[in-house]
């Protein structure tokens, strides 16, 4: 998979896809999976990121989601946190060519 690498990133979040329908989900501070990137827990630094990922993968995680992983997010003065890569931006919003589909459709 392309654009997964988060090496050297300061801020990271954990994402996965939901088992039953494949929906993109984010691991939250409350220890749940959310459909919205805005609710994602943000880890500051490599150690916090590893801890966040470990928290997202208890023994039974596969009953709910597929393949949790870390990805880089950037801090933006205006909009708060945003995914760093095009790939994760598209996952967080939906296809750039169909604004009526994916999470962006629900948001608008």
């Amino acid at each position: 998979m392309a654009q997964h690498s988060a090496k050297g990133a300061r801020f990271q979040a954990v994402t996965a896809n939901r088992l039953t329908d494949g929906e993109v989900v984010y691991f939250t501070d409350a220890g749940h999976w959310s459909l919205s990137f805005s609710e994602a827990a943000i880890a500051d630094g490599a150690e916090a990121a590893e801890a966040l990922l470990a928290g997202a993968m208890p023994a039974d995680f596969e009953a709910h989601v597929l393949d949790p992983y870390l990805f880089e997010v950037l801090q933006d003065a205006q909009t708060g946190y945003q995914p760093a890569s095009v790939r994760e931006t598209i996952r967080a919003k939906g296809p750039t060519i169909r604004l009526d589909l994916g999470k962006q459709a629900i948001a608008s």
Partner: protein
Amino acid sequence: MYRYDEFDHQLVAERVEQFRGQVARRVAGEITEDAFKPLRLMNGVYLQLHAYMLRVAIPYGTLSSKQMRMLAHLAREYDRGYGHFTTRQNIQYNWPALDRIPDLLQELASVEMHAIQTSGNCIRNVTSDQYAGAIADEVEDPRIISEIIRQWSTFHPEFSYLPRKFKIAVTGHKNDRAAIKLHDIGIVIVKNAAGEIGYEVHVGGGQGRTPFIAKKMSDFVPAAQLLAYLEAVMRVYNMLGRRDNSYKARIKILVHETGEEEMRRLVEAEFAKIDASQMLTVPQEEIDRIAAYFAPPALQELPAASASLDAARASDTAFDHWVTTNVVSHVKPGYGIVNISLKPIGGIPGDASDAQMDVIADLAETYAQDEVRVTHEQNLVLPHVKLDDLKTVYDTLLAHGLATPNLGMISDTIACPGLDYCNLANARSIPLAQEISNRFADLDRQYDIGELKIKISGCINACGHHHVGHIGILGVDKKGTEFYQISLGGSADENASLGDITGRAFTEDDIVDAIENLVASYVDLRQGGERFIDTYRRVGMQPFKERLYAE
């Protein structure tokens, strides 16, 4: 068209039940994702960026109107109102929920369709010429042997866990519309001096990271022995193909590393043993049984010209253009082959809505002998339409955004789903296709440019066939940002060739200007009636490159 007998029905039904059990075991937590993944992949279920994706097989690209209506129904009921026709003549649904896929497959089975072997390291859907049975000068309808190959390869006990995926394409015509030389096995139907039909077999073509044009392994394999020959190729590959590196696991690498001569010797030795056993010699009765399903439809005896068509063309310029670009001569006088472009200006290549699929199904039923074809260039075909009916068909297509007169033109782009959907992609493909299409929206300009095949892939796996585009575009990822590399001079037809990379890649902002620049070079350089590819083959890379990278 082929119709299932009781055994075909039973096997597909058993497969649906098998998959239903697999999904139930996964959702109930009885099997891990590691164990489930190969099972879902064997049935065409991928996990993409936003959701699961299901790939449904359309054997050799042939559909009945009933099947097309089912595809529309599935798009409505299980997806978000559309489907995506692919370069492998299949359809993909982008949003089905995993726990509903068994029900979807059960509905699909009711119209004799399935998702069997649309993924995994097995023999995939056999692809063929979209004009099969409708075009003049065909040696034999390629769907006959394609159906025999489909059956032989379905649940093949020996070849379901090959080193890598395996694709077979068949053409029955000297003009290759199935890109057979870019397949693991490409078959050309030929006639020998005695007038007997046989098969010329090419092995080891493919695209991806390391593209190769297939090597001709045999000039003539008799019809009854083709399965024995194919089994020999498969066995040599399964025994000797590399399993240590998935990038070197396709048969093209085996042929390349073994050498053409040695590969031929190995295949012939294996073939001799299998053939001697007679166990794969296909009975003539079975060839005849399957051939009967592909007998030419009962078309009327009509004059070659249609007065009503001529009148309509004279009074409607847009219609006239559409007939010129999108309608191809039929073997039967008074009929035409209608190409339905799924490349509206600025649209998404290969996508069709549920409503559009229903409209096409209705047209096929009323005007085209109940048949629809899918092309590897992501368009659809109504294979048998009376010239007298063309205007009516056109008007309906036009009303549903399906009458873009751009077949083979610069806006008739192949594009993979790219980073908008695909888990493997490095860059987006569809937005580029849309921008190019919008830039060259003016049809007169497209007609002046003439045939120009642009093919766009969002990663090195080359699902968008960029290696064989007259202009190929490959998306690459540089630290999370998209870049696009251009190649020139590729071709997927009977004179197949691989494109040459021009040089450094372009940004998203620059790439359409770069394409415009290449087109301008061609227009300046062309002589007589040369197409882009002809000019490139005559003058080579240098003049294009100089202008492309001029400061």
